[in-house]
């Protein structure tokens, strides 16, 4: 168990190095996704190994997944507004805040 913890820590530091390296590559807008991908991997290592989610009671795991699910629902519903605004612009339809008011 102790060895697993040290391996996890080493993995986290390696991923941190990858993340800093990626920051200087010409990835453009994709950089956000790469950086978040590495961050999710790091957060998963902390949750599964350091926080022992891997051995946690089932109810605790259900809470962890529920939190993740709710936050994803919020991101999906909130983000869909921002993601679809360009479609309206492309079709020449003014967005809600540009509509004339009576």
């Amino acid at each position, binding site marked *: 168990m102790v060895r697993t913890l040290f391996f996890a820590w080493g993995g986290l530091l390696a991923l941190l190095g990858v993340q800093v390296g990626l920051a200087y590559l010409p990835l453009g807008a994709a950089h956000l996704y790469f950086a978040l991908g590495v961050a999710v991997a790091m957060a998963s290592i902390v949750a599964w190994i350091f*926080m022992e989610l891997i051995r946690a009671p089932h109810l605790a795991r259900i*809470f962890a997944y529920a939190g993740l699910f709710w936050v994803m629902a919020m991101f999906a519903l909130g983000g869909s507004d921002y993601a679809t605004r360009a479609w309206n612009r492309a079709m020449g339809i003014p967005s809600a805040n540009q509509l004339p008011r009576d």
Partner: protein
Amino acid sequence: MAEQSLEKGYEADTSLIGMWLFLCTEVLFFGALFFAYFAYQHLYPLAMAEGVRRTDLTFGTINTVLLLTSSLSISLGVVQPRWRTRGFVGAGALGAAFLVVKGFEYAKDFQEGLFPGPGFIAVSRETGPEHIFFIFYFTATAIHALHMLIGLGLITYALKGKGSPVVVALYWSFVDIVWICLYPLLYLVGRGAG
């Protein structure tokens, strides 16, 4: 005797599950904060990248290493009962070091005119969105630092033999996860030229 130990087991399970439930509410709280970041990022990508280039990568990276190591330390204290005191003291010391580094970083930020308000020094014409990045930066890091202070209080409490060390360690590592998610957004995305 058997009944007593069974009850003890339930008690440990209940406090563990209770902490996970609390952390679930924290995920939603920080989720809203991160959502705000993504909305700003979508609306003002250039100003957000400008903000990232003005934060101090060295301070941020040192702090990330400190927190990752403090999580290791507290986890060692949980899995090896004979290392408990050392593990928890180590985690607390690294956490305190994080706050000291953050203090130096804030001082530097203030000097460089990064605090939003009349003294703010913008580097592009997008003054408003540049402010927004630093409003996010100071709000997010201050809320995170507050969580660290609460965590340090909980560690002290656990070292006095009160409460459940496992539950304290869960909270501590969660605060580490929040930082892991904040770090790339505040220090990395948009730093390079591309």
